[in-house]
C-alpha cells in the first residue's frame, strides 16, 4: 500500500467512524438525486407517452375551442369538450374527396373511473400510435353488436375483466356517484394489446351503443316516466345526433392545410381542425415554464444536499485537528490532507448517487402501477440514459468541487497547527 491508497483507506475509515452523520448526509444526497432523476424521468416519459399517443392522423376536428384543449380531450382523455359537433357536419366533412378515412369519437361516459369512448370499427382499422403502429387484439375481436365493448389493456388488467364479462357504464366521469346505465349492460368482446398510451385506459364501445344508453335521457339525466329497455332499443334507428370530435386521415399530405382551412371556415357550425404535431408543440411550449420550474427546484434540492455535506465536513474539521497533526507526523503531505477531505466528499456524493439511483428504481417499482393507474403514465424501468448519466456526473463533480472548500480549510488549519496536537 502506498501513500495514495493509504489516504483513500483513511478517508473510508474516517467516514465509517462517523457513520451516523455520514449516513444521514448520504441519505440527503440520495433523496435529492432521486428527486432530480425522478422529475427528469416523469418529464421525458410524459413527453414520449404524449408524442406516442397519436400518429398518422392528419387532422383532429372538434367544436371551436382551444387547440390544446381539443387535443387533450379528444386524444388524451384529459378534460371535457365544451360543445359537441353534429353528426351531419361530420358526415359532410368526411365525404370530401381528399378524406381517406375518419374516426368519430364520442366521449362523456365512464366505467369505474375509466373513460368510455364511442366510436366505430374504423377506429381499429385506422388508428395509429407510436411509430405508425396498428392496434392489436390480445383477445376477442371488434364490435359486432351495439352493446359490445373493447377494453384497453389497463382496463382489463386492473379490473380483471375478460371477454364475455358484462359491464355497466356510468353517466359522467365520476368514479362513483354518477347515474348508472345499468338497464343496458355492455359485454366485453375484445381486449387490446398494451400501447403505453391513454388508449390502454379506455373502454371502446360502438357509437350506437352510446346512443342507445342515452335514448331515454335528456340533458344529462333520465327522462321521468320513459323507459326503453335494451331489447326495445335494438329495434330503434340508432344514428347518433352528435359526437365529440373526429380524426381524419387524408389521401395526400399536400391537402392538409386546404382541408384545415375549409373545416375552420365551415359555415353551418363553428369547428376547429388542428394538426396533432402542431398542437403537441404548443402543449410543450405551455408546459415549458412548469418544467423549468420543476427542474430548478430539483437542482436547488441537490444544492441543499451538498450544503448538508459541507456542513458535516466542516463541523468534523475541528475534532479532527489531532488526526491531521498525527498524520503530518507520520509523513502525510499537505496535499494528502487536502485530498483526504476531497475524497471524503467524493465518497459521500458517490454513495449518495448510488443510493439515490437505487431509491429511484425502488420507488418506480412501487409507484409504477399507481402512477399508471392514476395518471395513465407508464414509467419504464430502462437503464439510466446518457442524459441522466451526465446529470449524475455533474452532481459528482459539483460534490468534489464543494469538497475542496473544507479541504482547503483543513489544509490551512493543518499548516498553521503543524504537529501541535490540540485537544
Amino acid at each position, binding site marked *: 500500500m502506498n501513500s495514495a491508497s493509504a489516504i483513500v483507506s483513511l478517508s473510508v475509515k474516517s467516514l*465509517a467512524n462517523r457513520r451516523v452523520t455520514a449516513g444521514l448526509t448520504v441519505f440527503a444526497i440520495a433523496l435529492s438525486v432521486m428527486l432530480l432523476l425522478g422529475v427528469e424521468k416523469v418529464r421525458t416519459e410524459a413527453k414520449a407517452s404524449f408524442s406516442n399517443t397519436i400518429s398518422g392522423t392528419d387532422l383532429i376536428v372538434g367544436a371551436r375551442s382551444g387547440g390544446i384543449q381539443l387535443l387533450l380531450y379528444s386524444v388524451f382523455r384529459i378534460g371535457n369538450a365544451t360543445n359537441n359537433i353534429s353528426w351531419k357536419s361530420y358526415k359532410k366533412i368526411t365525404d370530401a374527396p381528399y378524406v381517406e378515412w375518419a374516426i368519430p369519437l364520442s366521449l362523456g361516459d365512464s366505467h369505474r373511473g375509466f373513460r368510455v369512448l364511442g366510436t366505430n370499427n374504423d377506429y381499429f382499422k385506422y388508428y395509429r400510435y407510436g411509430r405508425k403502429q396498428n392496434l392489436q387484439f390480445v383477445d376477442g375481436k371488434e364490435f359486432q353488436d351495439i352493446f359490445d365493448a373493447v377494453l384497453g389493456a389497463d382496463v382489463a388488467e386492473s379490473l380483471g375483466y375478460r371477454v364475455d364479462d358484462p359491464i355497466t357504464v356510468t353517466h359522467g366521469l365520476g368514479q362513483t356517484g354518477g347515474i348508472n346505465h345499468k338497464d343496458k349492460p355492455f359485454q366485453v368482446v375484445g381486449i387490446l394489446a398494451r400501447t403505453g398510451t391513454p388508449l390502454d385506459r379506455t373502454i371502446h364501445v360502438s357509437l350506437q351503443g352510446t346512443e342507445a344508453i342515452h335514448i331515454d335521457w335528456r340533458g344529462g339525466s333520465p327522462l321521468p316516466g320513459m323507459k326503453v329497455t335494451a331489447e326495445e332499443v335494438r329495434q330503434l334507428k340508432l344514428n347518433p345526433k352528435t359526437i365529440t370530435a373526429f380524426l381524419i386521415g387524408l389521401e395526400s399530405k399536400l391537402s392538409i392545410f386546404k382541408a384545415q382551412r375549409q373545416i375552420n371556415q365551415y359555415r353551418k357550425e363553428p369547428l376547429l381542425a388542428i394538426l396533432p404535431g402542431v398542437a403537441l408543440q404548443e402543449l410543450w411550449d405551455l408546459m415549458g415554464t412548469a418544467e423549468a420550474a420543476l427542474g430548478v427546484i430539483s437542482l436547488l434540492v441537490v444544492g441543499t444536499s451538498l450544503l448538508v455535506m459541507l456542513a458535516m465536513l466542516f463541523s468534523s474539521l475541528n475534532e479532527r485537528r489531532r488526526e491531521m497533526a*498525527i498524520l*503530518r*507526523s*507520520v*509523513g502525510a*503531505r499537505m496535499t494528502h490532507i487536502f485530498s483526504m477531505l476531497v475524497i471524503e466528499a467524493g465518497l459521500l456524493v458517490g454513495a449518495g448517487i448510488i443510493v439515490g439511483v437505487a431509491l429511484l428504481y425502488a420507488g418506480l417499482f412501487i409507484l409504477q402501477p399507481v402512477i399508471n393507474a392514476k395518471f395513465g403514465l407508464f414509467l419504464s424501468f430502462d437503464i439510466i440514459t446518457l442524459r441522466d448519466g451526465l446529470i449524475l456526473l455533474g452532481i459528482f463533480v459539483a460534490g468534489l468541487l464543494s469538497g475542496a472548500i473544507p479541504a482547503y480549510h483543513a489544509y490551512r488549519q493543518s499548516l498553521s497547527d503543524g504537529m*501541535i496536537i490540540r485537544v
Partner: protein
Amino acid sequence: MIELQSIIFRWRPSDCPTLHIPQFEVPQGESVFISGPSGSGKTTLLNLLGGVVVPEEGKVTIGDQDITALSNQARDTFRVDNIGFIFQQFNLIPFLSILENVTLPGHFSSQRRQNSIERSGSLEADAKRLLAHMDLDLNELEGRAVSLMSTGQQQRVAVARALLGAPRIIIADEPTSALDTDTRMAFLDLLSKEVEAVNATLIFVSHDQSLASRFKRSIPLEDINTAKGHQ
C-alpha cells in the same frame, strides 16, 4: 547528527521570535533531555526539527541534509523517513486499529517500510515485534478500540509506531506527562532501551525536571534559546 545554526523562528510575522537559537548540536545516537516551562517553545522546536515549520533564518541540518533547503514535499518525506514522533497524549488515530496505527509511517515512507520488511518480513510482522517489545500483548488488545486502552498503553503503542522502520531520530514531546509516576519511570526505561538498541538519536522534551536524571545529557531550553519568551 542534528545541528541548528542561527535559527530565528516566529509563528506569525507580527510575533516576537519564539525561538532564537545561535547553535545547538546533538551527535547521532545521543539522548538529550530538553526542559523548559510551558509556553517556552519546546513543541515549536520539535516542529522545526521535524521540518513541519521552517525558520525565517538559519539552518536545520539532519545527517548531512539541510532540511530548510528542501521543498515542502521533500521535507515531508524526509521527516517520515528519518524521524519518529511521540506526543504528549492522544497519539493514536481513534478509528484505526492498533496495528494500523503502528504501521502508518510505513505507508508514507518507502524507506521505513523497506527497513521493516528487511527486519521482520512484513510491516505487520515488524509492528507486532515492536508491540511485543513494548510489553503489549496484541492477542489481548487486538480488536479493542484504541481509545479504550489506558494512557500508558497508548503511549507505548506510540513508541512502537515511532520506532517502526528504524528512523534515525526519535522525537518525544512530553510523552510521560499524562502518566502516573510509576508508569512514567517504567515507560522511560523502555523507551531508552529500545532507542539505544537501534542506535537512534532521542530528543526528549518536558517541563518535568525530575526526568533529567535519567538522561546522559540534559539542557534547559533557555540555555540554547536566547529569544525572550513573549509569554
